[in-house]
């Protein structure tokens, strides 16, 4: 699968890497049982620090999207697609807000107003 990180993006690199995995799971490119690249390899390929990839993988593990096993690497377990999709959307939302210069408080207000309108 394709991996991309944009150093100009205000979103931290580890968030971008985690986002790539979430999107791939959401789109079905990755499914349960698939193995993610070894963190060392992915870090070298994207020219990022090893800890950046490890941080992304740990975040995905905490979300329940992947399993980290010593010696076996990172394996997709993809139990909760809905939650990971929401996290992806939220990441995109925050990134877009940053680009537009919208503060976190303003963004929160927009979300809350949207909720009130329903």
């Amino acid at each position, binding site marked *: 699968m394709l*991996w991309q990180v944009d*150093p*100009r993006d205000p979103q931290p690199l580890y968030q971008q890497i985690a986002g790539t995995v979430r999107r791939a799971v959401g789109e079905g490119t990755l499914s349960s049982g698939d193995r993610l690249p070894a963190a060392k390899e992915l870090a070298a*390929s*994207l*020219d990022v620090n090893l800890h950046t990839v490890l941080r992304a993988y740990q975040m995905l593990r905490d979300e329940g999207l992947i399993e980290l096993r010593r010696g076996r690497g990172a394996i997709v377990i993809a139990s909760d697609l809905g939650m990971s999709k929401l996290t992806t959307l939220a990441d995109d939302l925050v990134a877009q807000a940053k680009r537009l210069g919208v503060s976190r408080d303003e963004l929160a207000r927009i979300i809350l107003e949207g909720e009130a309108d329903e």
Partner: protein
Amino acid sequence: MSKTSVRQDRGQLVVSAISAAVIVLVAVAGVVALWTARDQLPDQIATHWGANGQADGFTAVERIFVTNALLGGVLPLVLMLVGLAMKQGRIMGPLSVGLAVFLSGLGNGAAWMQRGMTPDEVASSDPGWVMLISAIAGVVVGAALWLVFRRTPTPGGVAANVAADAPRLLVDDPVRVAWIGHTAVSKMVWVFLGFGIVVTVVPAVRAFAAGSWGLGIFLMLFAALLTVFGLAMYATATVDARGVRVRALGLITWADIPLSEIAGATVTVVNPVGEFGGWGRRIGFAGEQGIVTDAGPALRLDRGHDAPFVITVSDAEAAAAAVNTLVGRRSTDHE
């Protein structure tokens, strides 16, 4: 373009010529060594052994020297010429030398071993150790020559030449791009692997049971190599700013092509048997090289100074897009 093809031809011509010289040297040296023992050789020399370990094929002593010279010299020379005709001299030259070392070692070694034997001793002679040692020597010599003669990256690399309709990614230059996937492996590979293991391990067990340790170890090593290379058909392919790599089991590198050696990538459809004569690390009938593990779409890398390289990966389209995007950036690099 004409300049680079001349260079390429000269390189493989040099490798083939050196290989031919080494083959002749090995074949002559083997026969001469055996010639020094001609007075001690039996009249009928065992040259073939049956499944029961008993010799069942014999060659008259006056013909053994010609037979061994043909087997250890002419056969590898033919292989070397076929490789040259296929424009694969850099690989096939060292391979032919390895074969010459193995065949000369086996033919002359097995005859040498029968010095001073009675006909009964000849019939129950065991060429196992000779076979094992010759095989190891052949692999070592062939691998050493391959290491010496393999193509080194061209200084300055090759010019990017990406077709207008070739897949590309829509990303800005600062975006770092990588594609990581794996080879698609045909069920036939596993069938052949299982079959290959059975037909080497069963005779190996029989050889051990018959007390022929050399032959048993030779067959077990062969089975082990077969297993490793068979399992390595399932390999990880990586495309990134450094180039394209195909690795398996953490120990076998099928391909490691620097980005500077790649002119562009396309997606092609591969027929392993029809175009490459089988599965694995292949040289195709049309001169393409590749790691071919399944029928279907494959990533095809066009290399300026070398034959195109084909890799049967899952999602070849995305892999080609990543290669072309990275190659396209190279021409804008100012480093």
